[in-house]
């Protein structure tokens, strides 16, 4: 369904991405490819225990090993201030960030960094790790979110008190870092009005983003006090700010060069290795490069929360939802900062529900500190809410999409956080799903079922900068601060090309370091094509103004007499011969050198708007009753993109989110033993879907333009991971008649419910 007014020349087309050749030929430079003169290799000594006090660290034997150049511990980090550092889709207390980078008095999860070493090669550095002696005093471990909330649970942080968000702090040590409550209307009265009330409990496990490229970072601390960083990051400026804060440096002393990035999904916003490489470089005077193994990525970076969620929804016999209540407890990992607040704000936001009560709890456990993961918090919240809505539809004998359409939030609907929806494409997405060939098709066959689910994500705006210079050959060099994930170079370049009326191929985008472009927030939050594109639009408008002035100068007329048309042709009043004056962008560019010089456009934008979006997914499955294996037979993702700048990359985001969600639903989980040791830190044992597990995911792009953007863009990258968990669970219920309220719905979990006891 396309509701946008299609008047664009470049926007909505599918040009080949500018970095495509480098990516497919292997020439693109990733962090691990970096080679610098005299470069040393660093490795991290990690805790084998999930909770322990550090009694002693002795690096003398490691330092005596030939080739070892330096060892650092937390004593080498400046004493961190107790303040919050915002970074993209998360934020962290600086002290927590420092303690996560290098443990101080305690280790709080298996894999927690306790020391780092650098040597002349990786083998020596690896050998040196075994020579660093660490004496621990083991402490009791708590791994489960509900157990961690019990008064008798082992306490991770003696100084942590529960913060009532908007209220006061507790006075007793607790693993509950914060409690948030959202309240709309009167839920008790609402439930009294309901003809049917369903309340269910849900559990999900900690899962990882599973990006292909492990974390890496290289540093060179120059003798003039300037620090150079090369890293795989979703936000070079946010990385710079974290590194500067951790090392107590002015940001002007730190330059971060973002390398190409092999996936992030939110997990490459926090820093892990970069400050260690910096400290090792300062000690040795040489550049130091560090790269994680897959094992380290699993154990010691930021997955997303395991959760316990309870949802209660009441509806009238006609399907009108009158009240909804949710209790959400999210594992934050070792330090506070789970996405439970976002989950709380999302859980019922797709629906117009007059009475809502939502309580969210952020809870520390002895697992790695979580990081953002694609629509942080929303997928598990939707798993719970959408599963109850599916059951409501079943009990009310309503079509599950009819029930959702009846209750869909609209412009002006009030959300649980009190704010109201603006222009949204909620109805349009649901109706497009209902009208899709997939939903209208009949599913036949034994052990097969169909499920649907719906999801919401806010998207964010925030600051982006860009500049562009016009070249005499009619091309434009575009300078960006957003690291390219999912084709953001081309989607931003296309918006500049659209503004200038030139071809996308005539814009050459490049992602540069933090000294070469203005502040730009992370590639995440579903903001980059939105805010980066807006910056490109403003750059284009700046260039148009300058080119109008130049044409006016050449024609010896006033700028007000010159028009810059959307086809990239500048037109002026008739000349002395009476013929209309006109010049193309390319021809004018050729005249620039001899009419005053080249022109450069610049922009820094900080949009207040963002463009929330919705997605509905439809999935058909077949469940093997003998093995418990779930085969995805057909999958359709429907989503509002506002305006799809490059439809192929919008489709790619929709398919990628769906694929990750299917893995989350069916197989993925962090498995721990009772001492907090992860049992499956490899891609063989941590089972993500491959191309063999999934059919081609069909996509339907709905376009309800965002009035808060020059081209109507809404973020597209995050919402497609919101519906799959519940959609797959609903399909399995349809196939088996059994509801699964715990993820993953693995073959073992299915057999456990399908087989008679003892089989």
């Amino acid at each position, binding site marked *: 369904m396309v509701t946008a007014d299609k008047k664009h020349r470049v926007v909505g087309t599918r040009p080949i991405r500018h970095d495509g050749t480098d990516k497919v030929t292997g020439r693109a430079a990733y962090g691990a490819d970096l080679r610098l003169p005299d470069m040393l290799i660093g490795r991290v000594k990690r805790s084998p225990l999930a909770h322990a006090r550090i009694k002693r660290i002795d690096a003398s034997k490691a330092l005596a090993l030939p080739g070892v150049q330096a060892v650092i511990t937390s004593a080498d980090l400046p004493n961190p201030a107790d303040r919050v550092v915002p970074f993209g*889709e*998360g934020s962290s207390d600086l002290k927590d960030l420092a303690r996560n980078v290098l443990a101080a008095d305690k280790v709080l999860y298996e894999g927690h960094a306790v020391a780092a070493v650098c040597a002349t090669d990786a083998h020596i550095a690896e050998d040196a790790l075994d020579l660093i002696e660490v004496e621990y005093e083991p402490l009791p471990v708590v791994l489960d979110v509900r157990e961690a909330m019990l008064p008798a649970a082992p306490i991770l942080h003696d100084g942590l008190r529960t913060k009532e968000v*908007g209220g006061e702090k507790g006075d007793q040590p607790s693993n509950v870092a914060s409690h948030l409550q959202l309240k709309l209307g009167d839920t008790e009265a609402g439930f009294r009005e309901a003809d049917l009330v369903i309340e269910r409990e849900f559990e999900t496990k900690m899962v990882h983003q599973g990006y292909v490229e492990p974390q890496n970072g290289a540093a060179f601390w120059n003798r003039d006090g300037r620090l150079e960083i090369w890293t795989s990051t979703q936000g070079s400026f946010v990385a710079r700010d974290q590194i500067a804060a951790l090392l107590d440096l002015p940001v002007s002393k730190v330059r971060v060069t973002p390398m190409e990035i092999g996936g992030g999904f939110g997990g490459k916003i926090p820093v892990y290795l970069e400050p260690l490489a910096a400290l090792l470089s300062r000690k040795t005077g040489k550049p130091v490069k560090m790269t994680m193994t897959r094992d380290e990525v699993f154990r010691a970076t930021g997955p997303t929360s395991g959760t316990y969620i309870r949802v209660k929804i009441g509806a009238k016999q006609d399907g009108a939802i009158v009240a909804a209540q949710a209790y959400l407890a999210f594992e934050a990992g070792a330090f*506070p900062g789970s996405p439970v*607040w*976002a989950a709380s704000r999302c859980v019922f936001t797709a629906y117009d529900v007059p009475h809502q009560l939502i309580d969210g709890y*952020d809870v520390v456990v002895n697992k790695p500190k979580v990081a953002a993961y694609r629509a942080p918090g929303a997928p598990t919240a939707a798993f719970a809410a959408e599963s109850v809505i599916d059951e409501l539809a079943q009990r009310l004998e309503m079509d599950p999409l009819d029930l959702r359409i009846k209750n869909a939030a609209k412009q002006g609907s009030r959300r649980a956080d009190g*704010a109201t929806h*603006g222009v949204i494409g909620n109805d349009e997405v649901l109706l497009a799903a209902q009208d899709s060939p997939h939903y209208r098709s009949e599913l036949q066959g034994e052990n097969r079922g169909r499920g649907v689910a719906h999801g919401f994500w806010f998207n964010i705006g925030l600051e982006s900068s860009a500049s562009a210079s016009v070249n005499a050959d009619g091309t434009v060099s575009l300078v960006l601060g957003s690291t390219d994930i999912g084709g953001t170079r081309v989607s931003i370049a296309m918006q500049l090309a659209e503004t200038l009326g030139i071809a996308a191929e005539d814009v050459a985008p490049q992602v540069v370091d933090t000294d070469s472009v203005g502040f730009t927030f992370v590639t995440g*939050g579903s903001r980059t094509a939105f805010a980066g594109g807006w910056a490109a639009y403003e750059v284009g408008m700046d260039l148009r103004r300058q080119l109008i002035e130049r044409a006016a100068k050449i024609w010896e007329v006033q700028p007000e007499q010159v028009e810059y048309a959307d086809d990239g042709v500048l037109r002026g009043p008739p000349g002395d011969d009476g013929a209309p004056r006109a010049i193309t962008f390319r021809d004018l560019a050729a005249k620039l050198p001899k009419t005053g010089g080249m022109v450069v456009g610049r922009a820094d934008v900080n949009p207040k708007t963002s463009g929330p979006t919705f997605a509905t997914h439809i999935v058909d499955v077949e469940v093997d009753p003998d093995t418990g294996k779930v085969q995805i037979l057909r999958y359709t993702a429907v989503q509002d993109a506002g305006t799809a700048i490059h439809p192929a990359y919008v489709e790619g985001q929709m398919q990628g989110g769906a694929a990750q969600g299917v893995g989350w639903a069916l197989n993925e989980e962090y498995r721990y033993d009772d001492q907090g040791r992860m049992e499956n830190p490899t891609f063989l044992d941590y089972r993500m879907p491959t191309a063999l597990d999934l059919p081609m995911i069909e996509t339907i792009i709905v376009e309800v333009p965002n009035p808060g953007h020059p081209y109507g863009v809404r973020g597209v990258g995050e919402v497609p991971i919101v519906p799959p968990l519940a959609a797959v669970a609903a399909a399995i219920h349809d196939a088996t008649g059994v509801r699964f309220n715990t993820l993953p719905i693995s073959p073992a979990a299915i057999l456990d419910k399908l087989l008679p006891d003892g089989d």
Partner: protein
Amino acid sequence: MARVFIPSLMRDLCHGGSQVEVQGDTLRQVLDNLNTLCPGIKRRILEDGEIRPEFSLAVNGVEESMGLLEPVPDGAEVHILPALSGGARP
């Protein structure tokens, strides 16, 4: 006059009210005036004169980008939202 929506855990300061109408052309003025009606509420929202990192203030549903300098039109709704980045220990 702006209508401020009070989060549930702050309503104890506003005599249980969920909405309060106050004067103010900027968020700073709105919060100053709100504090006279709901004593102590400013301390829960601000820290060192700035909006606490756990909150985001929205005017007519649009989250501020100018902090307390954000203009508040007459008749606007002001919401005290939990920050999306949420959960960090303040």
